[in-house]
């Protein structure tokens, strides 16, 4: 009888087996190419990557080829993986977390989920671009920039200071992603640099002049590039990622770097940490070390157009130097205080 076969528990088991077969039978998901894999005793570890596969996997393959260490990677977006790691707690299968923003790293650090990094790794990146307690290390930097519609404006028409975007000097539409970590760390930086009162005034002025809300940086860039938004606040690297896909000459959106020291030009960092249970995992340690090695840093410069954080390595061509963007008064660890920023944004009706 058809009904019986359809409902038999065996069908479920068979379906799961079928699927498992399909999935493991796919050679391309195997992180190590068997023909080049060095001895198996080189060790292995599990990486949770909040950075995209297309950008990170070549670096991991390079690492594996050099060290023989097998890396099992779980890709996801940084926010979801951060929530996942908090949920997993000590039971996590992950050894290393590679994060798209410092907020997620700070949250995991605050929950005591990271093992302290050895000094040579934690100290590879200068103060201000990494954790203050050595719980995670900064890997790359992304500058906050203004993206604008290059067909409607010239670079000179755009103000050099973030204040002038809200006090009447700039009349175009302005897009922000108030729920996004990078916008919130900009607001935090504003509070730290110019004080609570000025930060609130800036937001009130923004509210008064009007703004367009987006879910993330990518959507702001897309809208600007499509000519439906005049300008928006994003991280620089999204522009380069899209330019790599469609060709830089075809980009309608253009970037404006604000004046050095302005809260609108802060640098957000990506970073990595080792989970508490994996402090003794040499393979995991070797990978984090590789991220802040010259080779790892160069990879990000050349492939993702991000700022290297280790001294002595040049920024991507065509970008202002990291030093010119850094505000000496701003300690990145001050940006941990997202809660106050979120309360402010909530009170003013942004989130």
């Amino acid at each position: 009888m058809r009904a019986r076969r359809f409902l038999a528990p065996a069908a479920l088991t068979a379906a799961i087996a079928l699927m498992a077969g399909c999935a493991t039978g796919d050679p391309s998901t195997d992180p190590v190419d068997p023909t080049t894999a060095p001895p198996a005793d080189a060790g292995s570890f599990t990486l949770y990557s909040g950075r995209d596969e297309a950008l990170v996997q070549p670096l991991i393959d390079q690492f594996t080829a050099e060290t023989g260490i097998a890396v099992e990677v779980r890709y996801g977006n940084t926010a979801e993986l951060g929530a996942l790691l908090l949920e997993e707690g000590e039971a996590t299968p992950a050894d290393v977390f590679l994060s798209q923003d410092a907020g997620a790293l700070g949250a995991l650090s605050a929950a005591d989920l990271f093992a302290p990094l050895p000094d040579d790794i934690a100290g590879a990146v200068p103060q201000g671009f990494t954790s203050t307690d050595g719980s995670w290390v900064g890997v790359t930097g992304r500058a906050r920039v203004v993206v604008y519609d290059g067909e409607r404006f010239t670079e000179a028409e755009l103000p050099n200071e973030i204040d002038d975007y809200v006090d009447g000097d700039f009349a175009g539409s302005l897009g922000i992603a108030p729920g996004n970590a990078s916008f919130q760390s900009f607001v935090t930086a504003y509070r730290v640099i110019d004080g609570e009162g000025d930060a609130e005034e800036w937001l009130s002025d923004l509210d008064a002049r009007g703004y367009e809300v987006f879910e993330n940086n990518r959507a702001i860039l897309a809208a600007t590039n499509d000519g439906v938004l005049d300008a928006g606040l994003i991280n620089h690297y999204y522009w380069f990622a899209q330019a790599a896909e469609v060709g830089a000459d075809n980009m309608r959106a253009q970037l404006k770097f604000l004046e050095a020291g302005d809260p609108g030009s802060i640098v957000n960092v990506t970073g990595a940490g080792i989970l508490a249970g994996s402090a003794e995992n040499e393979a995991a340690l070797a990978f984090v070390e590789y991220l802040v090695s010259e080779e790892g840093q160069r990879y990000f410069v050349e492939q993702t157009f991000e700022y290297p954080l280790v001294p002595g390595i040049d920024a991507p061509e065509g970008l202002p130097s990291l030093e010119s963007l850094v505000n000496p008064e701003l300690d990145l660890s001050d940006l941990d205080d997202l809660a106050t920023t979120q309360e402010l944004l909530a009170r003013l009706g942004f989130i």
Partner: protein
Amino acid sequence: MTTIVRATEPTVTGTRPPVGLVAFAVVAAAAAAIPLVYLVVRAGETGLATIIQTLSRGRVLEYAANSLGLALAVTATALVLGTAVAVVLTRIRVPFPRSWLLLSSLPLAVPSYLAGYGWLVSFPSLSGFVPSWLLLAAVTTPYVTLPVAAALRSATGDLEGVARSLGRGPIGAFFVATWPQVRPAAIAGSLLVALYALSDFGLVAMMRFPTLTWGINSAYAASFDRAQAATLALLLVVMALVVVAGERGARRQLPRTTARAVRPRTISRGMLVSLLPVVAAAPVVGVAVPLLGLGTRLVQADTLRAVDVPRLLGAIGATVGVAVAAAVLAVLLALPIAALAARYRGRLVSAIESVGYLGHALPGIVVGLSLVFFALAVVPALYQSVVVLVFAYAVLFMPKAIGTMRAGLGEVPPRLIAVARTTGASPLTAWWRVTVPLALPSLGVGALLVAIATMKELPATLLLRPTGINTLATELWNRTVVFEFGAAAPYAAVLVLIAAVPAMILSGVRSTAKEEL
């Protein structure tokens, strides 16, 4: 052709359901309640004061009102449009009725985020309530069209003709004669639409219409505040329970009639042409325009590269595999709940059924995290295995099977079971031998709906999949986040094509096997 349908006895009320059935239903409801337990635990950790503070802060109430308004508008639109399309395609002689019904089913295969993305390619300035409403309505209308068309085709009488001959206008006649017969199907479909609209994040994010799911996401993404996210998600649960209760109220008393099938009416060519926009609206808005947009992006992409065929095949295999497994498991879990709700009333039955619907009202990230929590606490060995992933799909999409299966099981005449009992069969044997086979089409519909939804699911898949396993949805996500539209397009196309297969099968299924009685 004349179809003979027997009158169904009214739902048994006042009798106690068998203990065994209740036990199975409670187990299934417990599975569906995992996200709720998780949310209560997480929100409870902060205490009442923080919960109140979270609910009263910033734009939370505005988000909630947006969620509610969107769900209402989408549901009303899908209900009216879906019913209208079903009536046109079954009651009016249109050219190629089967093809039209098949076309009407296709929006089911398009994930909401893909529909949103496709529209934005051609019309980048779209944003806010109206596009969110129209697009969600387009991709959810088949949830109403298909069951109503099935109900209309299966068996109803030409009471409408009678009503019209008694002087009613066409619309009046429809409400008097036909609506009561398709109402259960239409309302059950509308419930799925409402829950879909409440839980959707992908489309509202693209259309920049901030709803509660948007708030939940940014609570995770920017604040890493799980308690705050849980509180907002509980607000969503409350809304869902209101919707489910509303559906139960609206579903009541099904008038049954013995009658003959209706021949499609012939109407003038001009009338037919004027009906075209009604029938074509959902497929055009939900399928044609988005796919056209994606196609344009594909042509524009500089980095059009060769498709990694083994990888694509791997993703297809994983997608089909999890979808089949999830469909089977979701139907198994939904079966006792549907069987209980089909025949019995009472508080316990209502509670069990309501809980069964919860998973579908929550965004995937919440259900995904709740199963991380559950799996690590209860079956750590199975964590990040396919078993937990499939279980999560079943929790998320079981509601898609409950309604249709309840209707299917409810329409099997109890008299037949009584006859089987007189031959000495036990209640369970009688149910298994008589009821289940007769309701099999409805079980199939439930399974297909779950399979389609599973293929498109993204957030829970990202959280729970075994490391290294990719479905078409995760592969698509992988590529669009880095702007690789050229590389993403084949995955998008294959995803829609594969999900279209069960959708097309659905368009041909009848609600019950009445003709075989």
